[in-house]
């Protein structure tokens, strides 16, 4: 008799310490999905790595579960493992009972009958999950024929119905190719395809990560409505706790290959009790309350460093001796559960103690834009890309990137440049850096003869840049010390000894240990690389730092570390910053002023709090509403805030954006 069958027999067996039952008057109906001791390990050139370990979870029909965690936590591996869609050489153990069938045991042919018909899967990269050389209609035809047996006009009718259900009323979508769809449209098509077989369980693997704020909210609303209407269970994989709260009534928090907590989300986040869950929540930048996000110190242990003890212990502010010697209770309880010796609320109360960590405890008052001359001033800057080609028949590739940009950045001031991808925000950065010449208008610099570098000539390069992708921003061949030293070496500044000293100073400035100097980039994590990039940018003692989405590729807790570091550097070095981002909440802690860019033109510019409270331009208002919409949930308010722009129907909104 398997554990599952035992569970069928007497559910009270599972009552025990630490296990809080969801419903005391449990229905006799068995759960839809029951994961038992599920582990996955991958064969890599470096040996066998355990990606997830002893996952236990039960999901009933119609329940919506969020799998929340940072990259490497195992949330995606778990949900792809459920439907046996993991790539690469791997081994699994444990069992996954889906309506009485063990998905780990059945042959692939039987699994094909379940995938698509009873379990629908939605992926992160919606455009990539569609065959580029087939039309949307062709995808539907094959999927409908396979899962319902309907074909011909009957199948087309079904496809049109499904598309209407996901908000695509335009039948012309069927004739389009995937590359002709916007990200939001493609995700809707992917959702409609997952609905073909009317599945009882929908697995959505980060379906909104690649989307902009407006589409993100719309897709979340859509998924929520579909699951309610169809009474389908949902597994929503995300790194975003706020999105999880928006969509789901339960959350499973993943950390370093384990589920550390399973909790209800019915009253916001108030039922979260694991120190990691709480810390994760606090590291999210918000539009209300304390502007500075609280980073979690350190990083998630790598696959090699994971042991049987609590894996959060080294980053946990509550950890005591017991956490380092005794493993927390086994998570055999597939309902509400906290895998921790001292869940928050029960031992320490609700207050989160401040720690002595400099980067998180020091708060800086937002400096007003300085009255002295700005370090850089853009006047009426325009930029047109492309030009004449040799061949007169070649496609005209001219395109207007920027028009009439007026922007000034004061000394010690941070201006955040907010805009969607393609709005021209990176082009402004390149123009300020002198990498691109403006087609029209002027750029005026006004740098003081500030003496701080090894020699005065460092002033020659007073604008430096840090990038989103720190990995490609560092030469893979040079070690960290060489990377940071490179600007000095190229400019023949100082002796070798002086340069080494400067490198050590810079490592200290970005809170990296001096031992990193001899490491190669591939040995470092994303957050560490971003610190190295900052150190290299600052080694020449610049006046202005252009930050091109420096945090958007990082996990939430690391993101908060970098934002705090930048805040600290801005204050202590009187550094001017141009903070380019698409995320208004991430900009808030740093920015003195916010400039909103849309289709190559500045639509609004003003002080941060003023913009957040009373934005004048409708586009800015919409951006804030869409971001705040998720962030309000973070304040503990369990009431879902009103739909954005309630008077306008969802479809109209969609057309506004896609127009």
């Amino acid at each position, binding site marked *: 008799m398997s554990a599952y069958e035992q569970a069928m027999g007497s559910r009270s067996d599972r009552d025990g310490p630490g296990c809080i039952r969801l419903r005391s008057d449990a229905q006799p109906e068995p759960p839809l999905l029951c994961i038992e001791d599920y582990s996955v390990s991958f064969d890599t050139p470096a040996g066998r790595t355990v990606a997830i370990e002893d996952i236990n979870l039960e999901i009933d029909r119609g329940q919506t579960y969020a799998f929340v965690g940072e990259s490497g936590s195992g949330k995606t591996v778990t949900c792809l493992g459920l439907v046996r869609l993991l790539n690469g050489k791997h081994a699994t153990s444990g069992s996954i009972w889906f309506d009485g069938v063990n998905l780990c045991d059945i042959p692939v042919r039987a699994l094909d009958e379940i995938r698509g018909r009873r379990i629908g899967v939605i992926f992160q990269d919606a455009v990539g999950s569609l065959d580029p*050389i*087939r039309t949307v209609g062709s995808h539907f035809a094959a999927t409908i024929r396979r899962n319902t047996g309907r074909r011909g006009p009957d199948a087309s009718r079904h496809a049109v119905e499904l598309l209407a259900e996901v908000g695509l009323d335009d039948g012309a979508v069927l004739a389009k190719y995937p590359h002709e769809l916007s990200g939001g449209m493609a995700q809707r098509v992917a959702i409609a395809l997952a609905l073909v077989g009317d599945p009882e369980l929908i697995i959505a693997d980060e379906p909104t990560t690649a989307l*902009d704020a407006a589409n993100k909210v719309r897709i979340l609303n859509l998924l929520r409505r579909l699951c309610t209407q169809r009474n389908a269970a949902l597994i929503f994989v995300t790194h975003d706790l706020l999105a999880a709260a928006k969509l789901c009534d339960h959350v499973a928090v993943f950390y370093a290959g384990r589920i550390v907590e399973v909790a209800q989300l019915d009253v916001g986040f108030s039922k979260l009790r694991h120190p990691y869950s709480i810390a994760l929540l606090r590291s999210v930048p918000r539009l209300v309350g304390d502007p500075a996000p609280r980073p979690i110190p350190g990083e998630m242990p790598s696959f090699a460093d994971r042991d049987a003890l609590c894996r959060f212990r080294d980053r946990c502010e509550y950890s005591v001796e017991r956490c380092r010697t005794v493993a927390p209770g086994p998570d055999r309880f597939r309902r509400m559960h906290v895998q921790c010796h001292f869940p928050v609320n029960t031992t320490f109360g609700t207050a989160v103690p401040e720690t002595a960590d400099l980067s998180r405890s020091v708060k800086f008052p937002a400096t007003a834009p300085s009255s002295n001359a700005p370090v850089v001033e853009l006047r009426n800057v325009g930029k047109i890309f492309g030009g004449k080609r040799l061949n007169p028949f070649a496609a005209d590739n001219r395109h207007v990137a920027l028009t009439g940009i007026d922007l000034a950045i004061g000394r010690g001031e941070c201006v955040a440049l907010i805009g969607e991808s393609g709005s021209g925000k990176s082009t402004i950065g390149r123009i300020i850096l002198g990498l691109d010449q403006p087609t029209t208008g002027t750029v005026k610099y006004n740098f003081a003869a500030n003496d701080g570098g090894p020699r005065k000539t460092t002033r020659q390069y007073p604008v430096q840049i840090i990038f989103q992708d720190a990995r490609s921003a560092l030469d893979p061949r040079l070690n960290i010390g060489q990377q940071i030293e490179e600007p000095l070496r190229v400019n023949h500044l100082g002796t070798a000894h002086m340069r080494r000293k400067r490198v050590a100073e810079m490592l200290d400035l970005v809170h990296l240990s001096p031992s990193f100097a001899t490491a190669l980039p591939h040995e470092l994590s994303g957050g560490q690389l971003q610190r190295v990039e900052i150190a290299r940018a600052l080694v020449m003692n610049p006046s202005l730092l252009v930050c091109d989405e420096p945090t958007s590729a990082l996990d939430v807790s690391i993101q908060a570390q970098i934002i705090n570091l930048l805040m600290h550097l801005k204050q202590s070095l009187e550094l001017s910053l141009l903070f380019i981002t698409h995320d208004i909440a991430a900009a808030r802690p740093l920015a003195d002023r916010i400039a909103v860019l849309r289709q190559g033109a500045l639509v609004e510019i003003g002080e941060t709090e003023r913009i957040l409270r009373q934005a004048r331009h409708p586009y800015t208002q919409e951006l804030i509403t869409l971001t705040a919409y998720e962030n309000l949930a973070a304040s503990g308010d369990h009431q879902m805030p009103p739909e954005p722009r309630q008077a306008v129907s969802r479809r109209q909104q969609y057309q506004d954006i896609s127009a």
Partner: protein
Amino acid sequence: MTMFILSKLSRAVLTILLALAFAFFLMRIAGDPALAFLGVDATPEAVAIFREKFGLDQPLPVQFLYYMANLAHGDFGVSLREGRPVIVVVSEVVPKTLQLMGLGFGLAMLIGLPAGILAAVYRGQFIDRLVMVGSVIGFSLPNFLLGLMLLLIFTLWLRLLPSGGADTAVSFIMPTVTLATAFIGVVSRYTRSSMIGVLNRPFLRAARARGLPASTVLWRHALPNAAIPIVTVTGLMFGGLLGGASVIETVFAWPGMGRLLVTSVLSSDLPVIQFIVILLVITMIFTNFAVDVLYRILDPRIGHRGSMPVAGSAR
């Protein structure tokens, strides 16, 4: 689409003109065709008569204009060796070469495509290693060595196949196999890498997630996507096949264009060489033009309806 075709066509025509000019001046710089043909000890009178006959006494640019005008009239000159119009001499041998190339191409595809697909599907397993080792041997084996070894084995020792000529059906066997061998290696390798590229793409996993069985996903999504880059390589293969044919025709005494080219070079028959080169250049340029257009038709992503690709959708 019209703009695209015009653009590519204008480029093709320009390339042809450049190639013609290049060929002409190279020929003239190379030395006096009269001396080359008549020999260094020819009498001055003979040289003068020869020059006048072939218009070689005019200044170079004038010669070039004459040359272009003649080309435009379809007059490609007279073979110095045979005294017959070049166009007749060459057109007699073209069909034999085309037959050989067609058969070689067919055989290479027939074996190379399935081998590459199998290797990709069973990546890292025995069959993959077998295909990879086979393909590296295939294109490392010089075709003239293979040809000579086949002659030794099948003609001298086993006495099964004729040593040369193109008279009977069996005489096709050795030249075709020799020509195809290197290309089987190239095709299987290219197919494999193209397939592996496609097999890692997320839409295959998405198709499995929708319940489509593995075989359907392979035939419906993987193969058509992998085929697109293979189409372009077949265009490039055409040139390689021509080169291969000229060697193989020499080894097997095959009465084709490649052997004609080699014998013409050995006897300095410049008009024939020039015509063959022009013919090949034009053929290759139009083959590539056709491949470009075909690629464009097969792959809807590239400049659909002539519109510009929209920059930066989802990161």
